[in-house]
């Protein structure tokens, strides 16, 4: 069964018909040609399909497109508006990737993670639930645990995000 859908992706409005079973990830990649979010596991375990959905980090593989009528999607490629986004620049400077497949998901997740920390959200490793959030290495590792990197670029990713967190 097809349904009509409107989505804003990286600032551009799209209007299309999709089968109700289509995930947001497949809609972006196969229907709109937006290939920045990647299909890794397709089961919510790797994070490579992460985008910012209405400003928050979100898995597009575990979302039906029709459930997000009218939503605004920001992908890693859309984050680079006037030159690279600071998180992208930090990944570049700290070798936060090797093959690059997980990188768009890592970047979107990191942008969302930094926003959550700015809003004071605690994490599993936060000792004092009602205290200030200090993004030390343990906090960054915990908060980024939903993004896997099979090349093992975690050391560089951590360096990049430590720098972003201090800015």
């Amino acid at each position, binding site marked *: 069964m097809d*349904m009509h859908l409107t989505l804003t992706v990286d600032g551009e409005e799209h209007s299309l018909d999709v089968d109700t079973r289509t995930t947001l990830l497949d809609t972006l990649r196969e229907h709109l040609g937006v290939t920045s979010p990647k299909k890794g596991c397709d089961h919510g375990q790797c994070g490579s399909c992460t985008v910012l959905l209405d400003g928050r980090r979100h898995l597009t593989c575990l979302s039906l497109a029709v459930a997000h009528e009218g939503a605004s999607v920001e992908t890693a490629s859309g984050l680079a508006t006037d030159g690279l986004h600071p998180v992208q620049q930090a990944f570049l400077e700290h070798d936060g990737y090797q093959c690059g497949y997980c990188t768009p998901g890592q970047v979107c997740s990191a942008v969302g993670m930094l926003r959550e920390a700015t809003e004071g959200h605690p994490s599993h490793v936060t000792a004092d639930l009602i205290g200030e959030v200090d993004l030390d290495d343990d906090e960054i*590792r915990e908060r980024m*645990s939903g993004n896997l990197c099979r090349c093992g670029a975690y050391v560089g990713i951590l360096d990049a995000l430590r720098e972003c967190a201090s800015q």
Partner: protein
Amino acid sequence: MKDLTYLTADTADSAVELFAATPGAQFLGGGTNLIDHLKLGVATPDALVDISRIPLDRVEEYQDAIGSGLRIGSNVRNSDLAAHPVVRASFPAVSRALLAGASGQIRNQATTGGNLLQRTRCVYFQDVTTPCNKREPGTGCSALEGYGRHNAVLGASDACVATHPSDLAVALAALDASVVVLGPEGERRIALDDLHRLPDDDPSIDTILEPGELITSVELPRTAVAAQSTYRKVRDRASFAFALVSVAAALQVEGGRVSDVRIAWGGVAHKPWRARRAEDWLRGRAITEQTIRAAVAEELTAARTNAQSVYKVPMLTNTTTLALLRLAEEVAQ
């Protein structure tokens, strides 16, 4: 995946009506478990009634004849509930349980109601090529003599040894929460501890909800003991994994003796396991390593293990001991 009719509801009443009028329907919340099940073929609904746009997305203080507390809309996202200032200050076990679950992305998607109704992660339940009494009643249980590290050790049956995967449900069971449910017959309240059922001879049914009943909110009563609560989870990796065992605990001590204590366990049963025998044993006694171990042993007399799951007994004992001893230190300060 078979063809799928997609419907949206704007209100809880219209969701219940749509469900009743639509054969083969299932409610869709955040989708983090259900969409995966559609792909795996574990869930095969003809239609989805999307409830995620119903404005059940607030956390509000309530006051009624029995007391006060927090009413949590069933669409409140796990991340928002974990970060809510009142939850962090007055119900720390709830924040801790949520933060111990899933990943940042999934917590942004998953809802309060959906978290409670997520299904077991038993590998056989999720693999449609294997027998599973929960997925296909009457086919047998592959986990009984198969991979059994995650098997239940309390309240299991010969038909099913699956565990309930929610962390949130364990904390809510410890703190005497209830769910408010709307169905064709109207509204009712169910104690969290009664929501999920043991497998007995029909593990295909996880809860006592009737088909078409919708959880609209969770009520979390404000108590002194809830403010002194915690959640500890043991898993195969440091983050983003389901519990091997977990413990929600809350403690109040007066004059060196336990005046109130709550213990609930995750990863060990078909439902969050409220350890009432252990609680009863501890009440009125001093909190020491010995008394806690004795109380846990009292509860675990009912445990049934095999060679692969037997590790859960000492792991649960040690985790409960650590959780309560740490709480006792905090309470003493």
